[in-house]
């Protein structure tokens, strides 16, 4: 927590590849563009998300599978690592301060957790009142929760992670949605430190240039170790 702001650090993130082979994955599914997905990843398993076509935002929340009142906390994660962006080495913390998952590989280099999820209502504010009808991540989350039978509601949607999304904050405090730094085939991999429910909205946003106005599919994979 130094007071001075140093701008001489490299802006190039370190990319860490994984040794895991797709053939040994116990789960290998494609989430079509704009759709939600719910799954469970057990403690010790490794979870990978692949950005199949590039610059696709994957809005993601994690819940403790045994106690859903414990869930991913953006502010605890940011504060604990003393850094805004998520990459290899980041421990994804819960609201109880426990490590839920650890990012173990990342060929994108930077993921956002400030930008949250789009919703019909925030679209009216950000883009135009007439955009209210458009499909959104919150609608995906709500439908996924309703279909899943999990005892979770809108109340259980805190700030999420946006994998593959680039939302830089300048030293002056400006927040922008910059062009993506991801590309086709980039992936992020994380080890579950507890049994977690994964809630994903493969973002259907059509108004934001960060995905070239073109939502695309992503792949999710799970390995036993």
């Amino acid at each position, binding site marked *: 927590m130094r007071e001075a702001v140093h701008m001489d650090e490299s802006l190039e993130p370190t990319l860490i590849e994984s040794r895991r082979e797709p053939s040994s994955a116990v789960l290998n599914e494609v989430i079509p563009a704009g759709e939600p997905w719910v799954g469970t990843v057990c403690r010790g398993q490794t979870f990978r998300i692949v950005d199949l076509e590039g610059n696709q935002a994957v809005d993601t929340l994690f819940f403790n599978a045994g106690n859903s009142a414990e869930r991913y906390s*953006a502010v*605890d994660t940011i504060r604990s690592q003393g850094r805004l962006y998520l990459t290899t080495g980041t421990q994804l913390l819960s609201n109880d301060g426990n490590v839920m998952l650890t990012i173990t590989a990342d060929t994108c280099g930077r993921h956002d957790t400030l930008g*949250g999820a789009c919703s019909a209502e925030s679209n009216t504010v950000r883009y135009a*009142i007439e955009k209210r009808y458009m499909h959104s991540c919150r609608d995906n989350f709500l439908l996924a929760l309703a279909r899943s039978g999990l005892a979770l509601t809108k109340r259980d949607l805190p700030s999420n992670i946006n994998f593959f999304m680039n939302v830089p904050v300048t030293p002056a405090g400006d927040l922008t949605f910059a062009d993506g730094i991801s590309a086709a085939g980039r992936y992020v991999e994380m080890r579950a430190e507890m049994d977690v429910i994964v809630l994903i909205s493969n973002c259907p946003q059509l108004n934001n240039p960060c995905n070239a106005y073109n939502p695309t599919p992503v792949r999710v994979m799970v390995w036993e170790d």
Partner: protein
Amino acid sequence: MTASMPGRPLWEERLRGGAHWSGVARRGVTLRLTDMEGGANVAALFFNYEERLERYNMADTLKAQHTAYLTKGCVCYSDMGRVLCSVTDDTCGWHDTFCGVSNAAMVEAKYGKTRFQDQRNDVFKNGYESFLNELGKYGLGKRDIVANVNFFSKVVTDGSGDLHFVAHHSRAGNYVDLRFEMTTLVVLATCQHPLDPALEYRPRSVKVTATLGSPVAADDLCRNRCPENQRGFRNTEMLYA
């Protein structure tokens, strides 16, 4: 300083450091938070008092206004595209939005263990449990604790995204005015900022002053900060039409 506040005076209350507080600010009321000693931190959550599923949303607030912090001219958005409150004045200049609050483990590790049995009401408080104390009074709890605002605290980031806590940011007498555009459940905790590097437990006191003002003018600073805010005010007015 109260004299310089626009509107009709309603009430005033002083919160000691480490206090938790909640109350309802009706639409049209302005709450002025004043840092009484310098170095205060006021962690805050906001809920629509009539529908508490609707709450302050850090991400929507930052995205709509393309800012990572709050200051004069900014508004706090709910997760329903409406404006809970507007920052109509601010002599401090920067209020943190993404560092959350301290918790029991952090406070004990940083400042040491205290027990009510020994310290009575000087027992060390933390932000998270302070929120739980207030939220519980309204049937709310852990699920309702979202990313909060930390008034009077400044945390900047460098090009790599590393956080830097700016010490001695707020001075004695600094204030921030929050004009409530919705009838809002306000939850406050005057615990130290979780990144405050000071080794001493010394949360500072603040004064909360409430006044009732006039309806928001067409040329209002916060409404016209950006087209996004104009639409946010439009959405809010629909609720009260």
